């Protein structure tokens, strides 16, 4: 029996932690940096913004970028840089609030229908078909039209439509995970369904959902600012990137910086979330 003990104490090769590996990927680092900076700007815009975003100065309207106003000023003389920075607060909030509820609902519903299948799964399939038939934006605009414009209603609208995408992803992943014997082992061990679904299947099935979540946060910012642009989301004079772009639209030939700067902010944050999601996919994948 000594031979068995000897064999079990196999030499383990020192392995780099997953964090160490992820930190060597430039994409992940850049994404983490962008989102880190964005989060800081969102949490304390007052510290970084040079002016009050709503300070009107009729003496300095539509000034091009200069050392005093790096992003120029708008038609009311408000400092464009300060408005873009203060918009981080609203837009980052959008990225989170428009997605977390959809994700939570989607993950739970998806896990349940994936585990139990049957009639509920059939109904779920029809609901998914119905929702994904419509373009996302059209459906959200329809819901906002019913509820009325404004940020809160926009979050409700995006959640009502968006959970379906999470649930679909989660369902497929749970079904795939159930092909593994550890799920059967849970049944054989006499574990409750709740334990098998939430303790065993969910942690193994959630990785793609988290990666999708990162992308979805980028999409939520894009969608939120689209609605802001259309006048259905954040309302002026609130500084929000979509609203800022809409305000600059009338002066696009004379004061191009008014629309360009918030546009760049949208692109950068979107890129940051995408890169971060990509890096997280590697970081969260369980080892074989």
């Amino acid at each position, binding site marked *: 029996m000594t031979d068995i003990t000897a064999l079990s104490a196999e030499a*383990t090769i020192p392995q780099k932690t997953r964090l160490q590996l992820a930190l060597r990927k430039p994409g992940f680092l850049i994404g983490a940096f962008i989102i880190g900076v964005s989060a800081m700007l969102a949490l304390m815009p007052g510290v970084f913004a040079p002016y009050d975003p709503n300070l009107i100065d009729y003496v300095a309207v539509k000034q091009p970028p200069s050392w005093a106003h790096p992003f120029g000023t708008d038609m009311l003389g408000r400092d464009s840089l300060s408005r873009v920075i203060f918009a981080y607060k609203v837009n980052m909030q959008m990225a989170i609030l428009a997605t977390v509820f959809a994700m939570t609902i989607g993950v739970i519903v998806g896990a349940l229908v994936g585990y139990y299948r049957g009639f509920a799964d059939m109904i779920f399939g029809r609901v998914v078909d119905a929702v994904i038939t419509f373009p996302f934006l059209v459906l959200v605009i329809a819901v906002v039209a019913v509820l009325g414009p404004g940020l809160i209603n926009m979050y409700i609208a995006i959640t009502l439509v968006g959970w379906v995408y999470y649930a679909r992803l989660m369902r497929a992943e749970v079904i795939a995970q159930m092909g593994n*014997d550890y799920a059967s082992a849970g*049944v*054989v061990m006499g574990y409750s369904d709740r334990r098998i679904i939430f303790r065993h299947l969910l942690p193994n099935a959630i990785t793609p959902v988290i990666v999708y979540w990162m992308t979805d946060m980028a999409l939520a910012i894009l969608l939120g600012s689209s609605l802001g642009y259309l006048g259905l989301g954040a309302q002026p004079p609130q500084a929000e990137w979509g609203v800022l772009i809409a305000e600059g639209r009338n002066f696009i030939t004379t004061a191009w910086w008014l629309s360009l700067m918030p546009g760049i902010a949208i692109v950068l944050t979107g890129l940051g979330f995408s890169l971060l999601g990509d890096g997280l996919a590697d970081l969260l994948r369980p080892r074989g």
Partner: protein
Amino acid sequence: MTQTVMDIKDIELEFPVSRSLVDFVKKRPGRVVRALNGVSLQLHKGETLGVVGESGCGKSTLARCIVRLYEPQNGSIHFDGQDIFAADAKADRSYNRRVQMMFQDPYSSLNPRMTTGQILSEALSVHNMRPEAEIPSRVAELLDLVRLPQDAAGKLPHEFSGGQRQRIAIARALAVEPEVLIADELVSALDVSVQAQVVNLLLELQDQLNLTILFVAHDLRLVRHVSNRVAVIYLGRIVEVGDSETLFSNPSHPYSQALLSAAPSLDPDDKGDAIRLQGELPSPLNVPPGCPFHVRCRHVTELCKAKVPGLRALSGRGEVACHHAEEISKHA
């Protein structure tokens, strides 16, 4: 003297095959895979019963029925006198404590996100095997029992080899102190040297803990080594059951004879008089009428094509499902 702990009676299980659009248009009836066609088997207390057969003959399906992963359409399984598929029994999770299963693939049977310690203590706490405070020491005991080092408790499954993972699976099954263990191809995914370790460990634990084991495998020499009795399955039917030594040295059913002679021998002088079966294993989608083996059997008669032979006791041997068992075994 021999006490039956589990009585499997005539279980039948079919899986529907999904119909294609062409089937639907041509109005072909839905087809089914007949995985088990009336399997009857008794498991005696303290024994190791080997179950052998070709791929796809229903060995694993039978194992999964016993632990209630599948529910047979017909027939019954009684454990300790109680029907395990009765409505009140299904709600009772203590059956799942008393009868445990170990799976073939050690790479998928452990949750990749739980450490060994978590896997074992979960089993202990769900079934209230020990008070909360004693769980860590019991986990240590279990690791000792399957001869894993103590630091294994903090490691994730990917840090172990196949054989070590299989021992974690054994420890998980033993954590709930079962009476019956179902080993479904327990070692077929492992290297030969590791197979021996795991099997010997299992046999030792059986002695220590007085376990009853159903050992499903396709490795005949291994089954001969571990089992007291052996059942041979062919196309979802048991064709022969008997004492392991008798069955291996002197099989009665023509299929058992062919199966055993197909196993490679280690004796260099032993060459070439293996019985070669004609034809292919029939598809379980389309089981032949009469004796399911008649299309490949050397001793086939008209009776075999018409009538399904039942299992019957043969003097001095086990039970055989063959109309002509007496003559055949006399010639063999």
